[in-house]
């Protein structure tokens, strides 16, 4: 059995920043990831990181924009802390070596982003996530810690109401292993692959969310799923909001700039939920374009000129040319909304603490909540770093005073017996078939526009798939890189989370932020100004609710 003081699961920006904080606090730290840290999905973030550092901008404006963007479901005390930390966080990342884009005077360049009062999104061309990930990994690698690379989390072990460690599957040796730990930080990112049409990487399967949920942690606000307005048709690859920030415009089939009808003041730079609904409405009402991959609209960059498009949106040019066979310098980009981000996650406070002693969560896997019902572009990279530092520090502090873990080598056998049984079945369900059915169900029944009937039908179907998962069969018996087995682990995790999303969305009879109920089109502050908390029981998710924290901003109607 392996033993460390602090175990961090996930090595994207949130996990790495947490690891750095915990190492700097002097603890024995292990980082567990199912990828190489530099292959984490943080690296796919394109547009930028928000910090109100411009002379005309202010932290208060950033706070207000975030509160408004959240449709007043974000906790205002957390948002205030978050926005205040933005400036120092960006400075720190620059000092770590991040190569940001610069303005002619040598300061950090900034661009406009949706829902923001000022251009406050600091960027590195259109690969900001990659730039930050490289710099943070370069910095973290100078410290001493243990890296368990290409290991899949299968369980967070909780006993005596306290974290004892984790169980993970080593892809290289084909073995399950226990890692005893006093504190565990979940930094495993999102579960976007619950959906078929998603901008997320294949690895975004919510392993940490599902294991935390299984260990007794609350999942908070899971029904709030962000759909990015501009995913490339067919592949679902993200086309950054920066494309619109640089001046890109959206047009329907008749060449109309339709955002004039949905957000007359800020047009394409309205909040993501607003723009996504506009696109879906255009297509549903017959004003979109259509092709073999369904309805879509056009994102036009042609008027910006070759020089600007190719320098500021270099990766986007590559994506369009290589993946869609079109040139954004001379042709419109076919786009349609795709699942992009989960505002919900493991419920935490600003220190990453969950309701389980010793269990912490951070980044997209967590819900603090600063994004509320809808996240603003540029706020998630910031979130990973601000709260990564907090959670890593808090987990290190807890580990210092926590009693010794009671995890025992004999615990491994019974804990992993069900997973090992998957391989001994002679017949059963194929994990990738179950995954496809789950994705189709979620795309169809838990998308941008939701109704009671759809959500009930979606829930019924997911529960059928969940029941079939009980008989999942792994046909690959290899000890080395057995993806058939890791597929099954991931599908099992995602099915739990799909159910929580559906149950939460069904219960919430209002429309707020990214959660749009056709049958309840208005925001209902009297009944629903509250966070959803889901706890796992034998019968499925048990819902309770928690109040939203207010400081200075009263709810107003959200107009862009």
């Amino acid at each position, binding site marked *: 059995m392996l033993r460390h003081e602090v175990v961090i699961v996930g090595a994207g920006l949130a996990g790495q920043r947490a690891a750095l904080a915990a190492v700097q606090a002097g603890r024995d730290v292990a980082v567990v990831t199912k*990828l*190489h840290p*530099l*292959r*984490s*999905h943080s*690296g*796919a973030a394109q547009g930028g990181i928000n910090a109100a550092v411009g002379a005309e901008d202010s932290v208060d404006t950033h706070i207000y924009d975030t509160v408004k963007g959240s449709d007043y479901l974000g906790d205002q005390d957390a948002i205030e802390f978050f926005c205040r930390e933005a400036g*120092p966080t*960006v*400075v720190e990342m*620059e*000092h*770590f*070596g991040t*190569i*940001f*884009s*610069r*303005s*002619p005077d*040598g*300061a950090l360049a900034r661009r406009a982003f949706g829902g923001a009062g000022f251009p406050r999104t600091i960027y590195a*061309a259109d*690969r900001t996530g*990659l*730039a930050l990930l*490289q710099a943070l990994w*370069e*910095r973290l*690698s100078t410290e001493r810690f243990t890296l368990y690379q290409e290991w899949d989390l299968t369980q967070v072990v909780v006993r005596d109401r306290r974290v004892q460690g984790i169980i993970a599957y080593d892809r290289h040796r084909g073995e399950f292993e226990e890692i005893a730990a006093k504190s565990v930080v979940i930094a495993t990112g999102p579960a976007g692959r619950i959906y078929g049409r998603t901008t997320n*990487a*294949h*690895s975004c399967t919510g392993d940490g969310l599902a294991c935390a949920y299984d260990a007794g942690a609350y999942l908070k606000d899971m029904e709030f799923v962000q759909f990015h307005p501009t995913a490339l*048709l*067919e592949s679902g690859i*993200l086309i950054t909001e920066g494309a619109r920030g640089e001046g890109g415009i959206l047009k329907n089939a008749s060449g109309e700039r339709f955002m004039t009808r949905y957000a007359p003041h800020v047009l394409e730079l309205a909040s993501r939920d607003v723009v996504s609904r506009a696109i879906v409405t255009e297509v549903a009402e017959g004003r979109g374009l259509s*092709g*073999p*991959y369904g309805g879509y609209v056009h994102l036009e960059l042609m008027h910006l000129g070759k020089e600007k498009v190719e320098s500021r949106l*270099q*990766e986007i040019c590559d*994506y369009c040319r*290589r*993946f869609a*066979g079109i040139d954004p310098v001379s042709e419109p980009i076919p786009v349609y909304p795709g699942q992009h981000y989960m505002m919900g996650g493991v419920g935490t406070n600003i220190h990453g603490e969950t309701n389980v002693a010793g269990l912490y969560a951070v980044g997209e896997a967590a819900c603090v909540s600063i994004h509320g019902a809808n996240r603003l572009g540029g706020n998630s990279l910031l979130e990973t770093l601000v709260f990564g530092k907090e959670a890593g520090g808090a987990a290190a502090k807890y580990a210092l005073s926590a009693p010794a873990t009671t995890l025992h080598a004999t615990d491994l056998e019974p804990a992993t017996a069900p997973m090992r049984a998957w391989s001994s079945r002679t017949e059963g369900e*194929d*994990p*990738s*078939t179950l995954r*496809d059915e789950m994705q189709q169900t979620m795309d169809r029944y838990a998308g941008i526009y939701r109704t009671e009937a759809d959500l009930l039908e979606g829930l019924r179907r997911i529960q059928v798939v969940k029941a079939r998962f009980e008989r999942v069969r792994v046909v*690959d018996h*290899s*000890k*080395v*890189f*057995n*993806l*058939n087995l890791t*597929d099954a682990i991931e599908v099992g995790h995602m099915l739990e989370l799909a159910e929580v999303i559906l149950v939460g969305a069904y219960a919430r009879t209002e429309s707020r932020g990214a959660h749009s109920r056709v049958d309840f089109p208005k925001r209902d502050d009297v009944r629903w100004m509250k966070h959803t908390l889901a706890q796992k029981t034998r019968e499925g998710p048990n819902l309770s609710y928690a109040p939203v924290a207010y400081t200075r901003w009263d709810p107003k109607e959200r107009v862009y």
Partner: protein
Amino acid sequence: MSPETISAQFDVYRYDPSDGTPPHYQRYTLELTPHTPVLTALLRIRAELDPTLSLRYSCRSAICGSCAMQVNSKSRLACETHVGPEMERHGRVVVEPMRNQPVLRDLVVDQAPFWTQYDRIEPHLKLDPAHPMPEGKTTMMTPEQVDRFKETPRCIACAACFSACPAVEADPAFPGPMALAKLYRFVVDPRDGAHQDRLVRIQPNGLWLCLRCHLCTEACPKDVRPSERIRDLKEMAIAAQGATENGSRHVVGFKDNIVDGGLLNEMKLVRQTYGTFGMLGQVVQGLRIWRKKPEVIHKPHKIQGAEELARIYDALDTDAEAPK
């Protein structure tokens, strides 16, 4: 965006150390649109035909660097290599693991050799204690200074260049294109305080082992152009330390030969590269060459127009020294 499909044949390298069978190729056939990426096809093979096929993949948009492999003998990212053109050119799609790294299973390789070389260049900012970071604020860096990084910040560490590199294959001591492109990134970073030290330390068993074949630049999916950055590093290394390595002496000697008489003098070049004593070590090799091709050891003379060549070099040198 035509939905018309083609029938594509995939010959995929298979190897599983735990089942005792030697490596072999397995054939799969899929109906798909020509625009389908090879990665999508491999994932369809896994889902529809054979769940035991193993590979690395994640983002499917050429940003995570997981799915580098050999597609019809070229090091490529499977996610951005389309099946149609491969079928047109080769009649089938042969998929194999990357080269220069031991195969763990099927298309999955052990990347330790690649990461060891990455670590060797000490890939992190090293501050000069005399120039600490400005307290509480970012450093200033002009867009021109950012341009000096060239395309190196785009590197996704996919190792396609490492796989394609014949110098890595010939000598495992060679850091490989990615590590050197990464080194370049630090050597041009105005925040880094160890430029000189980095340039000195990369020379023994390092920089000069590059064969200048440019296969790395051809293989790179992000247009990082490692071979061009290696060329830049060589220039900077000579500027920093003079020609003190066999490799740098060879380069400088080569140029001096041409400036002298417009012709390569192999005897002289060997002495310039290895020194008079070192030259003795090359005697057996030299005799062998002389027996086969005596004309290489020619009497030194000037070619016609040698002065013109010298003037071109002179102009190039002046140009290089001029501020840009």
